[in-house]
């Protein structure tokens, strides 16, 4: 296993974040990492050590598809696109995550009161 540096994502959330990022538009690996970093207000960071294995898992599951394309800096990159199956998986995962967060915040409020 690749050692995960501090400030890393919660386990299992990276795949969801990738799918969510790809919902707006197809992106290449680096752009996905950038997008997650920026759109989270620099709070989240998708480390390369986890990003590429996660992308492979998504490819295997058929939730994303990959094609060679050209980046904005005119470099040959592999561009990932969300598949319909990936979209369904995303909504499943988001529902699951919402419940988790809801549960977590209830516990936090309860411990404060």
């Amino acid at each position, binding site marked *: 296993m690749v050692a995960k540096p501090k400030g890393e994502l919660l386990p299992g959330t990276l795949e969801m974040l990738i799918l969510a990022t790809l919902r707006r538009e197809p992106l290449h*690996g680096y752009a996905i990492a*950038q997008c997650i970093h920026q759109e989270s207000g620099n709070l989240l960071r998708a480390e*390369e*050590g986890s990003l*590429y294995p996660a992308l*492979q898992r998504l490819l*295997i599951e058929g939730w994303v598809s990959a094609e060679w394309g050209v*980046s904005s*800096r005119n470099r040959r*990159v592999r561009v990932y696109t969300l598949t319909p199956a990936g979209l369904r998986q995303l909504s499943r995962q988001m529902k699951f995550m919402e419940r988790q967060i809801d549960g977590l915040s209830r516990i936090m409020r309860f411990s404060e009161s």
Partner: protein
Amino acid sequence: MKRVLRYLRAKRFEHDLSAEIEAHLEEKIDQFIEEGRTPEAARANALRQFGNRTRVAEYSREQWAFVPFDEFVQDLRFACRILARNPAFTTVAVLSLALGIGANTILFGAVDQVLLHALPYREPACLFAVTSRSANHGIEPMQVSAADFYDWRAQSHSFESLSAYSSWPMNLTNVDEPRRLESELVSTSLFSTLGVNAEMGRTFQPNEDQEKSPFVVVIKSSLVTGVWRVAANHRSRGDAQRLAGNHSRRHASQFCFPVTGC
């Protein structure tokens, strides 16, 4: 199967992955340069952030699950090398494996045929072989005399039906190559006792075991198609001229069936 396909695509996949990771790094360096760092600093920083490229590639590769297959192939090669280096050990190992597997196969084949497969008769569980025993000499089993058989058949109430058979080899002549046939002398009721019927023609009729009745045989199909070579004639009623057995007809059953492959 899926894994094997993936394995076949592995080369292509590896190339894609390393190209992809390289592109990622370059993008990152560009980004740092755009942010105002020197190319050297940008590269160093990007490399540091990326971490161990080989490890990232390997870990990504593991997701495709052909690593176990890879390792298996390596182990297999290693095993072959070791075996080739110790021919004596290899020979002994292979021989003992061969003997073990062979013995097991034979044993299972026999058990399978004898114990697991029911006899191809109507009610195999209700079939019994009845023999005599010599009280004086302790010989068992002994052939049953014809007289005993008739007595049993007349007096026994334990069985629905009793039939007799006795080994009765015959010669097949008037063919290209005369042959010795394994056959049996049987009572007419044998086929109905066993609950089987002839594939072609008929089996014996009750009156056909009388002293003066013609010589009738039931033959197996391979004989019809093979040595016998009689055109489409249905031959379950045999041709007496061609079969010559022991002519001393000691008892009245004059019907024969081949034992092998019956």
